[in-house]
């Protein structure tokens, strides 16, 4: 039975992605485009030359981190829809430190990265606290926190970091993750060292969850909080810890954008969507650190490749959003895929 479950754990996401891509092809056909051209353009947009490969890696970096943010909280049975807001405050805090402090790189860069993680963690702390102490559902609180993050950050950019401007100045070189070497081998794409941080974060998550007693408690609370309480674990502490660590991952994603990709932060009219995409990444990656890396890479490829579709095949980039949404539906409705697979197996015998 367990081997069956593991098999399903791999098969369901793979089948979902395949159906999602097929559905995308059907949509292209229906709207009068050539799906082969469309997907060829997508491939070229993601892997066509060293520049696009660099950009694909850049785009994958924050997706892995927000995926980890959602997946980590999910291990404790919590739904972190607030990754979006945590990304924004992490981005703001990292850039703020990058702008305001004058220090050698060995201090400045880690400080800026940690500031991002701390801000994200703080943004996860409140929903965790309310959940742990008052039993308030974290989904609603995190959605509300997203908007508060968005509006407050815009206000700070306009009135604190600048004087009524929409973009801050560029951070000091000592806080930057950008790399001349990486840029030179990828034909001046915006790829930066953040990918190493994202992969390291995935390792950290795997290590905490699988190799420490903290992780054991977090998972245990997720499976059955009453039993965990009875066994002497501090359920409240674990819920808060899970949201804080999840928030810190999302804050890091924001720091990657601020310190690596852009070097600035601008007033946002809407969300970055990194957090919402993180939900998709976590779901597709089965909330497992390794799975999240793969899923983050897949979505990074899809999103980066989409940029080439309008010019090369006349297909609007939103096709990729539709495909991703459909993939989420299929993974979420995995009950029906499992049912179909079991049915298939029985008839095969």
């Amino acid at each position, binding site marked *: 039975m367990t081997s069956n479950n593991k098999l399903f754990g791999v098969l369901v996401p793979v089948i979902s992605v395949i159906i999602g891509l097929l559905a995308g092809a059907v949509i292209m056909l229906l*709207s009068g485009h050539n799906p082969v051209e469309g997907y060829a353009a997508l491939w070229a947009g993601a892997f066509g030359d060293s520049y696009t490969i660099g950009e694909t890696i850049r785009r994958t970096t924050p997706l892995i981190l927000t995926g980890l943010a959602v997946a980590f909280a999910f291990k404790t049975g919590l739904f972190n829809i607030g990754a979006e807001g945590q990304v924004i405050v992490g981005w703001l805090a990292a850039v703020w430190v990058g702008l305001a402090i004058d220090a050698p790189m060995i201090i400045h860069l880690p400080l800026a990265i940690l500031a991002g993680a701390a801000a994200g963690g703080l943004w996860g702390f409140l929903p965790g606290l309310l959940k742990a102490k008052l039993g308030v559902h974290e989904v*609603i609180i995190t959605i509300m926190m997203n*908007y508060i993050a968005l509006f407050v950050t815009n206000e700070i950019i306009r009135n604190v970091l600048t004087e009524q401007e929409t973009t801050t100045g560029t951070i000091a070189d000592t806080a930057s993750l950008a790399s001349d070497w990486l840029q030179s081998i990828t034909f001046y794409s915006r790829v930066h060292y953040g990918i190493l941080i994202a992969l390291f974060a995935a390792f950290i998550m795997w290590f905490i969850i699988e190799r420490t007693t903290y992780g054991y408690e977090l998972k245990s609370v997720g499976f059955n909080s009453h039993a965990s309480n009875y066994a002497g674990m501090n359920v409240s502490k674990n819920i808060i810890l899970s949201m804080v660590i999840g928030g810190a991952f999302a804050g890091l994603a924001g720091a990657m954008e601020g310190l690596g990709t852009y070097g600035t932060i601008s007033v946002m009219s809407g969300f970055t969507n990194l957090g919402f995409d993180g939900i998709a990444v976590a*779901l597709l990656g089965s909330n497992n650190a390794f799975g999240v890396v793969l899923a983050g890479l897949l979505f990074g490829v899809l999103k980066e490749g989409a940029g080439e579709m309008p010019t090369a095949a006349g297909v609007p980039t939103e096709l990729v959003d*539709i495909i991703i949404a459909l993939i989420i539906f299929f993974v979420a409705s*995995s009950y029906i895929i499992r049912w179909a697979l079991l049915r298939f197996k029985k008839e095969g015998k």
Partner: protein
Amino acid sequence: MFEALQSIIPTVLFYSAPLILTALGGVFSERSGVVNIGLEGLMVIGAFVGIVFNLTFVDVFGAWTPWVSIVVAMAVGAIFSLIHAVASITFYANQVVSGVAINMLALGIGVYLTKVWYGKGQTDMVERPFYTTDIPVLEHIPFLGPLFFEGIYVTSYIAIILAFVAWYVLYKTPFGLRLRAVGEHPMAADTNGIKVERMRYIAVLLSGALGGLGGAVFALTIASNFSHATIVGQGFMALAAVIFGKWHPLGAMGAALFFGLAQSLSVVSAGIPVLADIPQVILLIAPYLLTILALAGFIGRADAPRANGVPYIKGSR
């Protein structure tokens, strides 16, 4: 003072109408036990359909175009919400995940089709949106007439009337009792012969219709065209209104009116001396902050329907 009120009240009604309609949809869905994070997406679809239908058929329907448009948007919204219903009721999908997917899908489809049909990121402006009118007879009431019945969108009053209809349906009819029973204790309801899945399907379709209506009303009164930035957060604000209003139709209406007030204050505050001093950001985050406070129990306890978010699997305990 009178003039200040005269500028605020119509603006409040104007901003609240889409929120009220969408929040009512949320109330139906959540009362039946299906969490609907997808309200935002349903509004997007409603706005998209309302605008596209209006642009396409303006020559056919003439002055009636906006009315026909919102009815069509309701129908398409209901059909679109079927996806959420099938995933979360029949396939036992995680309802929050399905709702998130609805939001992504709606925006993806809306903007994709806009680009395919219009060749650019946004549609043209509609020729026949809703216009403000004076309500006959009532506008002549002294004092109240000019405040509430002059230069008003009829859709605002339709929203308020629908809130009372929703209250009547939910609390005074057998159908409403069944719907609420399904959301509180589906097993008990099932034992009493209520078809749990059917009730939930109806509730989700109602939320789709009302969400679609809300989006279309927003598009045809406030935005006048459709792009990726037409609906940004109104659906989530409606969701906040559902919770702030304690899952009650009239409560949700009150909350939506209050959020509408907060929004309109951030628009008109510059002209009113006392309000001009309040930083705009406070007014912008007020609805969300208040919802958190309400949930934390500072403003009366807000308890969700017991079975909200839990798929009903026959025979399981």
